[in-house]
């Protein structure tokens, strides 16, 4: 059930794009291209003006999307207009969720998200300490609430988090902010080792850029890889060069396939399956 099904048979490739980047129509094409390229679930960013967990690549995507008119209501229309058959996760910041309720807390946002087909939420500025009301609303409407495990999350914090996790855990591969990198950080393997006995899919994000990265991370025990900035870079470059929507969509599909294939290779290299 829920988002866990995206990880059921094989390692999952979970791409991220900011919805509406660089505009509504092109962004629909781009998300659909990722699904064709092998995405098992898709994280859609609902842009917030102060994205404190994002690096420059996604900050710029958020600016493009906001300037093209993205709002929470347009985001929900966007999700309804999408023609994909994989689970969709909304990644946004808490103030947008909170304000959508017009004084009623996070419930109205979650209700609307569920109605348009969103199956989970990732909220980077909402640690477990503040997640109670959103957790309650997600439970009511059957959404998963995905928590981020950072390299600094250890001991008691890790234990408390296990009680709140649903769908999958977002394993932050390195300290810092989002952004494509040239290597895989050792912190990734240490984090996966700390979570090895958790019975919930572990998806690693932050810094993954190539199929080889995906391979290495899955072979180290991840159940999936989350890739954002490396894909947003393709959108940004196409936008700057004035490339056609079809051209950019093709590049995204190709990149998606590279990442998915890398993840599959990684699974075949594991000594033995971690999960039955």
């Amino acid at each position, binding site marked *: 059930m829920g988002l866990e099904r995206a990880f059921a048979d094989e390692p999952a490739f979970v791409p991220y794009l900011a919805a509406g980047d660089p505009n509504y129509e092109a962004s629909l094409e781009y998300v659909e291209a990722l699904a064709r390229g092998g995405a098992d679930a898709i994280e859609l960013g609902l842009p*917030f*003006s*102060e*994205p*404190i*967990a*994002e*690096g*420059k690549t996604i*900050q710029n995507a958020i*600016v493009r999307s*906001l300037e093209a008119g993205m*709002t*929470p209501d347009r985001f929900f229309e966007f999700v309804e207009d999408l023609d994909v058959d994989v689970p969709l996760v909304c990644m946004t*910041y*808490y*103030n*947008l969720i*909170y*304000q*959508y309720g017009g004084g009623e807390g996070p419930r109205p946002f979650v209700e609307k998200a569920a109605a348009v087909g969103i199956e989970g939420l990732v909220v*980077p*500025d*909402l*640690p*477990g*300490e*503040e997640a109670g009301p959103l957790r309650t609303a997600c439970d009511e409407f059957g959404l998963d609430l995905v*928590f*981020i*495990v*950072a*390299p*600094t*999350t*250890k001991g008691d*914090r890790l234990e408390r988090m296990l009680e709140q996790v649903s769908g999958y855990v977002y394993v*932050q591969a390195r*300290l*810092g*902010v989002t952004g494509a990198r040239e290597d895989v950080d050792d912190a990734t393997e240490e984090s996966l080792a700390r979570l090895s006995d958790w019975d919930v899919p572990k998806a690693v994000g932050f810094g993954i850029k190539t199929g080889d990265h995906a391979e290495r991370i899955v072979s180290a025990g991840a159940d999936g890889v989350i890739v954002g900035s490396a894909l947003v870079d393709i959108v940004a470059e196409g936008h700057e060069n004035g490339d056609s929507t079809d051209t950019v969509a093709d590049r995204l599909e190709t990149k998606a396939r590279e990442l998915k294939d890398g993840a599959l290779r990684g699974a075949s290299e594991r000594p033995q399956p971690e999960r039955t």
Partner: protein
Amino acid sequence: MSTDDAHDPKFGEYGGQYVPEALMPAIEELTDAYQRYVLENEDGFMDEFRERLADFGGRPTPLQYADQLSARYDTDVYLKREDLLHGGAHKLNNALGQVLLAKYMGKERIIAETGAGQHGTATAMAAAHLDMPCEIYMGETDIARQRPNVFRMKINGSEVVPVTVGRGTLKEAISETMREWATTVENTHYVIGSIVGPHPFPKMVRDFQAVISEEAREQAIEKTGGLPDTVLACAGGGSNTMGTFAHFIEDTGVDLYAVEAGGSSLQVDEEEGVAPNSATLSTGDEGVLHGARTKLLQDSDGQIMESHSVSSGLDYAGVGPELAHLVDEDRVTPVNVDDDAALEAFHRLSQDEGIIPALETAHAFGYLEEHHDEVGDSVVINVSGRGDKDLEIAIEETSKRDLDIAPDMSIFDSVGRSPTSQSSGDEPRDSVGGGGL
């Protein structure tokens, strides 16, 4: 002052810890250090802090009777002279406290944000004084128009890191410093500049700034035999405000006014996402920004607005959660003063009392001019900072207006040079953040 323990992250519904998970362990560590060193004086932390505030900072600052203003308003006006603190503003109280705490915690490096540069300069001074490496994140727009404070930070040995995203001002600088902290959190302390951000920052910064009201209250009793009827302080993020109010909170006979920047108008342009003011307590709505639930200038979707004030130290779309709570509890009254009235007050205090205030501070005096018949028989005003660095912007802004009180600057015409020929940027700001961040 407010009684609350280190582990309660809330002020009523406000406050909390809305930050990325990667920062939470550091915030737990900081909360523990705040409890032990600040609240319990472990290892004599507070004794050392007080001693350094006295010897390095120059505390206590005087509570001065203002002869001319008292006569003008027919009420006793007392000035709490934070402008005489080392660095020229109240900012050092907090910066010195946090850099010292970072040392006690074994951190190896300091980062801080700054808008106009006054918190940055205070942090740079404290870091040099305590021999800690320091990097200050500052919007590129602010760097261009706050050159003197950039010089001061660099001369004190700090790195100044330009923030190029967004409009390149304080809001972006705070976001970027949080990102940097998320990267280097294991050995770095983030010295936040006001009573904003995630718990424990709002309480801790208040406690470091509370020395203002601790002194002022004692000094008022000593000089007048009693408490003032009213206490006034300007409010941006709110660190000088809470510092000035903290020890008067339980004196319910003392009226507390937080004077915000009314900018050019209290109206907002929702389409453009711009509020031409920073009157967050007066006009803002509840929301979550930079780690805390508080009052914000935001549009109906929850996107944060660009604020504006002639004084960049007040120019912020959020405000400290404790102030938001005290306003809801009717303990603090939020009021506001527009750019014009603040500029008039800047000149009046300079001419009548021989004190050139920061433009932030001038807002509090603008309120006194407009409402002096409502403040009772005695009033304490916090002179949160001096205005030396504001001179260029104050003259430029004055020249755009028809203020009777403005000094005659035609002397520059006779030497063939405009008094404002060196200023840059089409959206000028001052450079001493007497209030705010």
